[in-house]
């Protein structure tokens, strides 16, 4: 059973003053293809920031530019105010999971982490600690090539946590995790951010992101579409589905009340910008009997599809 049991006695880290990650005009061209186009955004401390975009939108390339793995064609990115390559002890600043397969398959999970720990000057005892955090102690002596997808994700996450970083950058970390693992990840990231740390996480599981993230950065075709709190993204987009046997009468009453009902097929209208009790009152005054009055809360998925024109390339 995975539980968020990460040194609960340790005090919350002091909240970071400056943006944890700042991208300014980031641009990357691969030949004639512009993967990322003049992208500017910030990731704030104490928040889980979701990084959303259709396939091929440039999310992974952006993350790799932030981490110094891909050289930007233009623009820059900083982590805690410094380019990644200038960080003195990067493992204690940023932990990242970019690929599920990022280890030699014939090396054991523990040895993989010992290799990483040595590079950052960390003691082997830290390896045992992170193995415990991700609940991989029992499999640590096995060759990592034999791990399931979920175990590989947890091994990668263990590597990211080795240096006890203040920023996490995770590319699709929920891939391959079972529902229990996804729940653990969500709780872990929220716990991590609550300590004043920052998380930038991409995922195509929008319902999961809805529960996990405080705010989102939405990109499409390499360009920023929207950055903000999820609540702001979905606010004002909620609607009502209202139906009556007297379809025409209902439409007239709603229009007379200054609303804009959109016919939805059959005997229904979709109404936005009005609470359910107001619509009910309008129908009552007009003497129209309602057969349905259903609120429809706009989800992150609805907002995302609207912002990206439902693009899936």
């Amino acid at each position, binding site marked *: 059973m995975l539980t968020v049991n990460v040194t609960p006695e340790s005090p919350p880290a002091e909240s970071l003053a400056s943006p944890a990650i700042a991208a300014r005009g980031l641009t990357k061209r691969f030949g004639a293809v512009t993967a990322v186009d003049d992208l500017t955004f910030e990731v704030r401390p104490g928040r889980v920031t979701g990084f959303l975009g259709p396939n091929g939108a440039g999310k992974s390339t952006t993350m790799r530019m932030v981490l110094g793995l891909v050289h930007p064609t233009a623009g820059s990115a900083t982590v805690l105010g410094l380019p990644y390559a200038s960080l003195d002890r990067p493992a204690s600043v940023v932990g990242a999971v970019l690929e599920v397969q*990022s*280890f030699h398959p014939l090396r054991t999970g523990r040895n993989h982490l010992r290799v990483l720990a040595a590079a950052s000057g960390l003691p082997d005892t830290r390896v045992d600690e992170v193995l415990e955090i991700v609940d991989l102690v029992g499999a640590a002596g096995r060759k990592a090539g034999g791990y399931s997808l979920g175990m590989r994700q947890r091994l990668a996450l263990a590597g990211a946590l080795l240096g006890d970083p203040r920023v996490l950058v995770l590319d699709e970390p929920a891939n391959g995790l079972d529902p229990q693992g996804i729940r653990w990840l969500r709780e872990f990231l929220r716990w991590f951010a609550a300590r004043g740390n920052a998380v930038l996480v991409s995922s195509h599981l929008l319902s999961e992101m809805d529960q996990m993230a405080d705010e989102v950065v939405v990109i499409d075709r390499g360009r920023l579409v929207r950055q903000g709190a999820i609540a702001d993204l979905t606010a004002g987009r909620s609607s009502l589905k209202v139906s009556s046997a007297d379809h025409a009468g209902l439409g007239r009453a709603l229009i007379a009340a200054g609303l804009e009902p959109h016919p939805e097929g059959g005997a229904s209208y979709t109404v936005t910008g009005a609470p359910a009790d107001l619509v009910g009152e309008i129908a009552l005054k007009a003497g129209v009997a309602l057969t349905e009055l259903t609120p429809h809360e706009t989800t992150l998925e609805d907002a995302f599809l609207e912002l990206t024109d439902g693009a899936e390339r």
Partner: protein
Amino acid sequence: MRNQIMSEARKLLTTRSVWGLLAGTMVISGLAAWAIAANLDLTGTIGLAGLPGFQEMMALVPAFVLVLGIRSYTDEARHGSLVPTLLSTPVRRRVVGAKFAVVGLASIAFALAGAAMVVGVSSLVLSIDGAAVTLGSIGALAWLLAKVVGVCLLWSAIGLGVGMVVSHQVAAIVGSLVWLFALENLLDALAPSLARYLPGHAGMSALGVEAYGTLGPLSGAWVLAGWAAVCLALGAGRFRRRDIA
């Protein structure tokens, strides 16, 4: 840098293919020693440094060290572990420096392991044939081993450089071995005066293998060192600019 070297050493020691290469080095050296020593017609007492054919017995060890150097980078590119390596050590010249230090040290171990097999097997074969092999001159033996170690060190650097340039593991290893065992010999047949400056020929000259020894050991070593410097510089330059996408 110490941390990076420790990390690279752990990678090397926890990778089974490295131990396979070491075993291959010892087996091939032993077989070469057996094949050559069995055809020697020697009697009396022979010092190790004066063992006929010692250089030829060691001639295949550089190929294993070359592969060792190539896989130091290409293994990481192939399996994706280059990403966590660069996240831990974003300054790429440090990664190159640590890899060079570790494959260099490993190449010395390979050279000494190969030499030990050659000495052991050839001593056994010659003693069966009635000759007595002794330690002989320590200074001459040390010089002989120094040549082998130096040549292997340079070949490991060439391998690392080639790996960083080519990146694709199979292409780098197959291409290098085809070059070493086929193309250089073809060029030797076509233009021998030019071929002696090629890395394989220069390396043999540095070892003192007479069939390739037109440059002489010292010049051969300098030419091989030049190749090592060029390969490392090209590889490091390519690695520094490469996007790990």
